[in-house]
């Protein structure tokens, strides 16, 4: 199998030479092909930009091919610039909202123009033509896959950044009163988030010298054993630093779940509403709120 595959690859292809010779024809065909493709997104990208990108990539490809004439390894240093350019395009397209196939079409639409050019050039030598076809297909497939991979990476970057932003946004620590902090939690708690929550709470305790922190879980949709464990960890860590924690905002449903799961929250002060917790915290801090009317 391997032997056979190897025999298909000629020692030296004439593709770079052919492309260089008829570059302008190929470019024109390629752009026409791209403009005619169903995956064209004229709403996301101007035609001039597409022309510019195609021209530049073809240039880079010719340069790379002249340095690595066997065209069998796009991971080689000769292809460095072409790779970078391609991943730049894919990434920017990923950000602009192209689909993977729309992005990969950039490379795959080069196939037909290249093949027809090769047919014209190698008209009298069908054997050679078949061999060269194989080289070209292998090359373009590799480039196409590379594009898709880069696209995927671009998308993952976006997701990661959004996740990070969400994480930072979702864990505000509020100073309710002198020495009293509140941490309203909204959304599902997982290990990564608890870590951030814990760190920001402890940091704030150090900064403000607060002795009581209220963790409000009104916005936490479900509490399972894992979430409860995370909460208990946060409470323990705060206690180690010398601050007491009150957990508030426990909905009836969640109270039932906690008991059914057998989670032990007896060491923690729990209140059903933030207001109750705040009242406890004020009492602990030896602060009293009185009605203005009574004072007069």
């Amino acid at each position, binding site marked *: 199998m391997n032997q056979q595959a190897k025999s298909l690859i000629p020692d030296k292809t004439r593709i770079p030479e052919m492309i260089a010779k008829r570059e302008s024809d190929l470019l024109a065909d390629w752009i026409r092909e791209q403009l005619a493709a169903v995956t064209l997104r004229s709403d996301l990208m101007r035609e001039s930009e597409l022309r510019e990108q195609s021209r530049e990539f073809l240039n880079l490809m010719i340069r790379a091919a002249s340095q690595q004439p066997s065209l069998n390894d796009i991971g080689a240093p000769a292809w460095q610039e072409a790779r970078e350019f391609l991943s730049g395009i894919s990434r920017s397209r990923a950000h602009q909202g192209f689909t993977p196939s729309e992005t990969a079409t950039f490379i795959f639409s080069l196939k037909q123009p290249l093949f027809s050019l090769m047919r014209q050039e190698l008209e009298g030598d069908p054997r050679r033509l078949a061999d060269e076809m194989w080289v070209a297909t292998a090359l373009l497939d590799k480039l196409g896959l590379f594009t898709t991979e880069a696209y995927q990476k671009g998308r993952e970057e976006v997701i990661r950044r959004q996740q990070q932003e969400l994480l930072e946004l979702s864990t505000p620590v509020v100073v309710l009163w002198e020495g009293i902090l509140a941490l309203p939690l909204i959304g599902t708690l997982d290990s990564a988030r608890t870590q951030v929550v814990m760190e920001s709470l402890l940091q704030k305790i*150090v900064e403000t*010298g*607060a*002795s009581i922190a209220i963790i409000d879980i009104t916005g936490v949709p479900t509490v399972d054993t894992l979430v409860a464990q995370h909460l208990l960890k946060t409470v323990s*860590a705060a206690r*180690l*630093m010398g601050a007491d924690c009150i957990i508030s905002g426990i909905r009836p449903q969640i109270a039932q779940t906690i008991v059914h799961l057998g989670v032990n929250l007896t060491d923690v002060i729990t209140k059903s509403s933030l207001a109750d917790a705040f009242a406890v915290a004020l009492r602990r801090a030896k602060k009293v709120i009185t009605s203005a009317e009574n004072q007069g």
Partner: protein
Amino acid sequence: MERIPILKMGDYLLVTIQVDMHDRLALTLQDDLTEGIARTRARGVLIDISSLEIVDSFIGRMLGNIAAMSRVLDAETVVVGMRPAVAITLVELGLSLPGVRTALNVEQGMRLLQGARAEQENVNGRGER
């Protein structure tokens, strides 16, 4: 040999850990402290670990042990100034030091010790009457 100084302040002993704790140093401190409590008849021990950046399970356990030993010798222990990173590490290690009192800083720790003592005297006083 390297030692951690133990200062006497009224009825209380004050320990400030300012160097990285290694195991032998911790054991020496444990010896010195128990001896110090017995000798000075101290009613409370305040351990300031605000400059401690690294703890392992051994040091964590030692803090718990010191508190337990002091209690046996009739002295309350307060650990003050634990850094967030240290607190997280101890919790992750499963050492939440249930028997140890904690406070944010030396001032609050001192107040806690005084409060605990007053409480105890109240209880004792009532018992005697």
